[in-house]
């Protein structure tokens, strides 16, 4: 099977994730969309690794997973504490850190 199709899939997933980030308000959904984008990238890395016959892409995919895991820990903690104080998971309500 032509590996380029995986790249198309990766681009599709990334676009879905990006659109989700831009149009959804709910922090949890936002978060999942970001994960989707990250995984789309992972897919692209792995595909390229296969296409070029080198392991670099797969190694980076592991790194990305580690980063994503760390991000989930920190991000979810923020979202939970935000929900506790403001009783809402909408990101638009959390706009106090501006000038």
């Amino acid at each position, binding site marked *: 099977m032509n590996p380029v199709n995986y790249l198309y899939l990766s681009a599709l997933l990334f676009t879905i994730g*990006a659109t989700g*980030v*831009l*149009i959804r*308000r709910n922090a949890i959904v*936002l978060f999942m969309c970001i994960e989707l984008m990250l995984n789309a990238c992972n897919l692209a890395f792995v595909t390229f690794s296969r296409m070029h016959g080198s392991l670099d892409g797969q190694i980076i995919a592991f790194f990305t997973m580690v980063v994503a895991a760390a991000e989930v820990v920190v991000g979810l903690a923020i979202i939970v504490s935000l929900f506790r104080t403001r009783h809402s998971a909408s*990101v*638009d309500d*959390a*706009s*106090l*850190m*501006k*000038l």
Partner: protein
Amino acid sequence: MENLIALLIAAPLLGAAVLLCGGRRLDAVGHWLGTFLAGASFVLGAVLFTDMLGKAADARTVTQHLFSWIPVAGFQADVTFRLDQLSMTFVLLITGVGSLIHLYSIGYMEHDERRRRFFGYLNLFLAAMLLLVLADNYLLLYVGWEGVGLASYLLIGFWQHKPSAATAAKKAFLVNRVGDMGLSIAIMLMFTTFGTFAFGPVLDSADKVGEGRLTAIGLMLLLAACGKSAQVPLQSWLGDAMEGPTPVSALIHAATMVTAGVYLIVRSGAIFNAAPDAQLVVTVVGAVTLLFGAIVGCAKDDIKKALAGSTMSQIGYMVLAAGLGPIGYVFAIMHLVTHGFFKAGLFLGAGSVMHGMNDEVDMRRYGGLRTYMPVTFVTFGLGYLAIVGFPGLSGFFSKDKIIEAAFAKGGTEGWILGGAALLGAAITAYYMTRVMIMTFFGEKRWQPDEQGNEPHPHESPGVMTIPMIVLAVGSVFAGGFFSLGDRFLHWLEPVTGHAEGNSPVSAMTVTAATLVLLVVGAGIAYVQYGRRPVPAVAPRGSLLTRVARRDLLQDDFNHVVLVRGGEHLTRSLVYVDHTLVDGVVNGTAASVGGLSGRLRRLQNGFARSYAVSMFGGAAVLVALTLLMRAV
């Protein structure tokens, strides 16, 4: 003996310092202290004079070096004094007339609570004026030059609570500053030309320099002289200067300071001798001013302003003579000295009249005062005869010589200058006769002032009349004494040089013409003011009269061109500074602030809009990268 020169200046300077810093404790004795120190300076001057007479005519110049003043590479200004026949003449005139006027002021300023300060200023003036005539270089002369300007400023504005006095003082200083500019440029020119500005080296090597350079120096010196001596075009301050107390007008604005310009020109004779163009300008300025002053003098009803016009005119004679070169220098100085006597006497007489008339200055409110103030009348009358050139009195000798010298210049110029001088003599006779008649003859015209105080004309006390009498004696005899055997000529010759001219008109003719014109001028005045009653309110008068009353529109000119123009200039510059120069800076600041305000709006706090910009940015970057590849 020459070590005493500095003392001449030191005495009045000490007086000024003590009187001005001494405070109220000195109020009781201040005026005597001031007069004593002025007198001391005169005595010292007399001692030095007798000493000088004992020497041979060509060995009379002595100098005293005090200290090095401004030593900078190549620029050596020393405090050195030079006493020669020319400065000796001035020293005696300044300290002599000065002492008399100090004495007079004791009486005149008796009721002024600030009398001590007045004497302090007078002493300051004497010191500065002596410095002016004793300096051995132009820069030191400049110090005296501005020093007398300062004293004049302080004294004109002595009654500072009167806005008119304060304005007049400021005007005098400013107009003089314009002249001072000329002096400083002249000194700078001398420095670049000769590498020095000491009298000796400059005047001795004047003939080695090109004529153009000397003409420039001469014209700049003339500008300075015009400022100090109230010559056209810098004449406008002298009339207003009469706001000062009358002794000041007598000493500073008649006898001494205003003649400093003549001194400067005569002192710089070597420069002018080698620059005929500059000389011509000097004579023209002198001739124009002598007519200008005389015409103004004819129209004024204020006795002091009439005399001020006369002063201007008489100094015009001196400047004219000084512009004629070696033939005129001696007569310029001789007229200066005799003028010092009779004009100081006239002013003191005017002061005496005012003193008796509740400070009234309008001659239309005088009349018939001869019986009330006999001493004043006689001394003033003698001064009057002297100034109009009555045969045998001082003015006759000195003025006639100047008119003769003017004709002797030769050519058309000679005729024009001589004619102007003759015409001036006629006008002098007219306006002085007018003053005399309006003040001392006719019926009484005085009225109560606004407070209803009727003036009670009375003769002034002895402390005032004695100086007047001394000056009157001087006005009668000085001219004859000087002219006898050409004494004055021989006295000054070693300094000024001398030349005989070939006059197209004989001396007798000139004298006869002067006398005829004297009679004509005085006669017209008699017909106008002696034969008919003088109206208490000035009639409208002819156009010339009205223009002359306004000082021939000098102030109108100054007002329109300088004051208005200057106001517009400064106002628009203030505007420019605020809006343009400062505006650029504030504008930069404001635009930086505005820009950051705009940028701030992007930071709206919505995470998703940040995300949009991130995606947008990333998309642009990717697009650019691809585009670069494609190209």
